[in-house]
Structure formats: structure tokens, C-alpha cells
């Protein structure tokens, strides 16, 4: 008998979604993908689309939308304060976890992840029509925002002074500082390559199985606790390039392994690697 996740209630199976998806008054299924057009090619029949860029990011300043805008996004998708929102998406639920994290930031209570995401739903041959459902608007009020799950740069600087753990979830090439930016798109780039000093390197997708589901608790403990030496009572900050891949790791540490204090640094490398005089390390991770 394998050990259960710390919060198994945060996950639902594709089967559960298939059986419960018609309860559109109580449940809203939300697809969040990396590819902005993927939802339009077909999706879980009752699902709405919430795009990480166009719906959740402020179009002008580098931040999330404000509470008022978030209320509109929820309201227009028929999400009320007591609606159970089930997130799923492409790439092992990478963007689904990001949308989940933003919903938690605004204090939405009932958020779930469909384990295995879009890939699993599709592989199982479940229905994927392309027509877009609409739902009657519901009133929504942001009540208990949860800024404690977000880390800012000054907090990360404090964090490294006190030698608390950081998890860099980017690829090994990004971690070592071999990759910086692409030609022709300097605005997408970062001036310096490397990682935040002392960070451990655990590419985010190591937490996922081939079919996009999360690895078992034992396997996750092996990676984050035995291999990387993290402890459930540690104060941990996860980061990547813009905070999306690290929300997958944030979900794993917080809900599957039950870590008490995990934050996502969404400024991530595109902020750190462009900042003046912040410390940077290059090369292989230093073993704890």
C-alpha cells in the first residue's frame, strides 16, 4: 500500500471529472495551457479557458491583475466564491498549477487539480468538443487574499542571507548559466545567466510521471527530501523564469508533500538575472 499524499483531497482524477462535469452550478472546470490556442482545438466539454497571460497578468505593469479584475474574470466564467474550480491543462498541468496558484493568491477556497491534465484526458479518449460553453455570471468578492504564498525579490535576498532553502526548477542549462536569451527578442531575455546562490536544482518535470500525473509520495520524497535534503518544516522558495514552472513545484511541496511554508518567487530569473548587484552563482549545484 503506497503512502498517501499529504493533501490527497487537492487532486481529482480524469474519471472523477468525467462523472461530475455536468454539475456546472457547483463545479467549474478551467483549462489553462501554455499554448494560447490549444483550448480552441477541443477541451473537456464543460471547461472554460483562463489564459495565464491574457486573463491573469496585468497588461501594463509586471504583476497579476488586481482583485477587482480577478473578480470580473471569475464572475464572467460563472465562478462564485463557493464554486469548486478544477484546473487542468497541457504540459503535465504546468499552467494549471500556475492558474491554481493565482487563484489561491486571491484566496479562492475550493481549488483542485485534475491529475494528469489534458494529456491524460485526451489519451483516455474522453470527449473534447471545440465549442465554447458559457455560464451565467455569478457575483464574486475577493475575501481572504493569501499573499503569503508569493515571494518578492527583497524577501529572497533575506532568504539567502539566512541560508534558507531555494529550489530552482529550470533546466540544468539555465541553472548552470549556459543559456541567457535569444537573438531578436532581447525583451524576453535576461542579462545574466546562472542561479540564486545556494539554490538546489530540481527541474520541475521530475515531479511528473510519463502520463502527466504526479509521482507517488515515495518518489517525491526521494527527490525533494532524501536527494535534496529539504524538510517539511523548512521555509522554502521555488523559482524558475517567470514563476510558472515553479508553481508546479510549489503545488507538489505544499499539497503532496505537506511542507508548511512554501512560496513561489514569480519574479524569478527574469527579475533576478536583470537586477543590479544581486549575487549570482554559475555552474553545477553545490550539494547540501
Amino acid at each position, binding site marked *: 500500500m503506497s503512502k498517501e499524499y499529504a493533501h490527497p483531497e487537492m487532486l481529482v482524477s480524469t474519471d472523477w471529472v468525467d462523472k461530475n462535469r455536468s454539475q456546472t452550478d457547483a463545479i467549474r472546470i478551467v483549462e489553462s495551457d*501554455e*499554448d*494560447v*490556442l*490549444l483550448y*480552441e*482545438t477541443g477541451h473537456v466539454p464543460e471547461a472554460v479557458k483562463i489564459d495565464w*497571460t*491574457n486573463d491573469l497578468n496585468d*497588461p501594463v505593469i509586471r504583476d497579476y491583475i488586481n482583485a477587482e479584475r480577478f473578480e470580473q474574470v471569475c464572475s464572467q466564467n460563472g465562478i462564485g466564491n463557493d464554486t469548486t474550480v478544477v484546473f487542468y491543462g*497541457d504540459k503535465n498541468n504546468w499552467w494549471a498549477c500556475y492558474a491554481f496558484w493565482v487563484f489561491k493568491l486571491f484566496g479562492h477556497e475550493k481549488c483542485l487539480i485534475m491529475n494528469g491534465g489534458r*494529456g491524460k484526458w485526451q489519451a483516455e479518449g474522453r470527449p473534447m468538443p471545440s465549442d465554447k460553453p458559457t455560464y451565467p455570471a455569478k457575483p464574486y468578492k475577493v475575501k481572504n487574499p493569501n499573499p503569503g504564498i508569493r515571494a518578492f525579490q527583497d524577501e529572497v535576498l533575506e532568504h539567502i542571507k539566512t541560508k534558507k532553502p531555494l529550489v530552482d526548477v529550470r533546466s540544468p542549462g539555465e541553472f548552470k548559466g549556459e543559456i541567457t*536569451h*535569444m*537573438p*531578436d*527578442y532581447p525583451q*524576453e531575455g535576461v542579462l545574466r545567466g546562472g542561479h540564486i546562490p545556494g539554490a538546489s536544482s530540481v527541474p520541475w518535470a521530475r515531479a511528473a510521471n510519463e502520463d502527466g500525473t504526479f509521482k507517488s509520495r515515495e518518489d517525491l520524497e526521494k527527490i525533494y527530501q532524501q536527494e535534496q535534503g529539504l524538510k517539511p518544516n523548512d521555509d522554502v522558495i521555488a523559482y524558475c*523564469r*517567470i514563476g510558472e514552472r515553479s508553481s508546479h513545484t510549489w503545488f507538489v511541496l505544499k499539497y503532496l508533500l505537506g511542507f508548511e511554508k512554501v512560496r513561489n518567487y514569480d519574479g524569478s530569473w527574469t527579475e533576478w538575472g536583470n537586477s543590479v548587484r544581486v549575487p549570482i552563482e554559475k555552474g553545477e549545484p553545490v550539494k547540501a
Partner: protein
Amino acid sequence: MTKMDEIAELFKSVDDETRMHLLLDFAKKLPALPEKFRAARDAGLNRVPECMTPVFLFVDRENGHPRVYVDVAEEAPTVKGLLSIVLTACNEGGVTNADAIPNDLLNRLGLDGLIRMNRVVGLSAIIGRIKRQITAINAEIESPGTSKN
């Protein structure tokens, strides 16, 4: 007006939502990779390494003109759509010079606000490769034997 300009004008003339639907239409009509390149693709050759999505790129020449062929994973309709535009501009528009594909393609199509961050990085890498290969093919056409591409 070039084929590229025509497409850009069409994209610029519509609202954001219609623009995304136009892109999806282009994605749907991306031609399948010709038979002659499939063995190379299956062997993993010509994969664009900068793109997280599996994208395979082949640039060939026909009747003295460069022709571009790609194979893109189904789960990446945005990449499919953009490459379908590039292919239409090149193959139907008879592009003979890499300069005909603008470096700021996304801006030209009015898609820069809708497609951001790491999506753009991979896309710019593919477009860069297509342009370099067209230039190499042209060099080969002009002075046979000087280019390996």
C-alpha cells in the same frame, strides 16, 4: 504587395479574438510533412532544439526556389499557425529571399500582445532557422558546391 504583407494586413484588420481564430485556421491548414522527409523526422533529424514543442524543419529547393516544410506536434496550435503563415508566405508567395520574412513577425501580425514569453523564444528560434536555411539554399543555387545545406 507580397503574400506576407497580405497576411499581415488581414491580421491587423481584425480584433483580438478574430485574430486568434485566423491563426487557428492557419494551424488547421498546415500541410503534412511530405513523405520524402518523414524518415529523417522519425530518425530525430532536423529537430529545432530551441523549441520545447517538437518541431522538425526541412528547407529544400524546387525549380530554383527555396521551399520550407515543417512538422509540428498537434498540441502546439500556435506554433503550427505561425509556421503555416511562414510556409504560405514562402511557398505560395514564392519567397526567394530570407528578408521577406520579418524578424518581428509577431508584431506584424498583431500577435505580440497575445503570445508572450517563452512561447516567443521558441518561435523566434524557428523563424531564425528558416531564414538562415533559405539564405544557405540561395547561396547554393547561386554558387553550387559552396554550401553544405
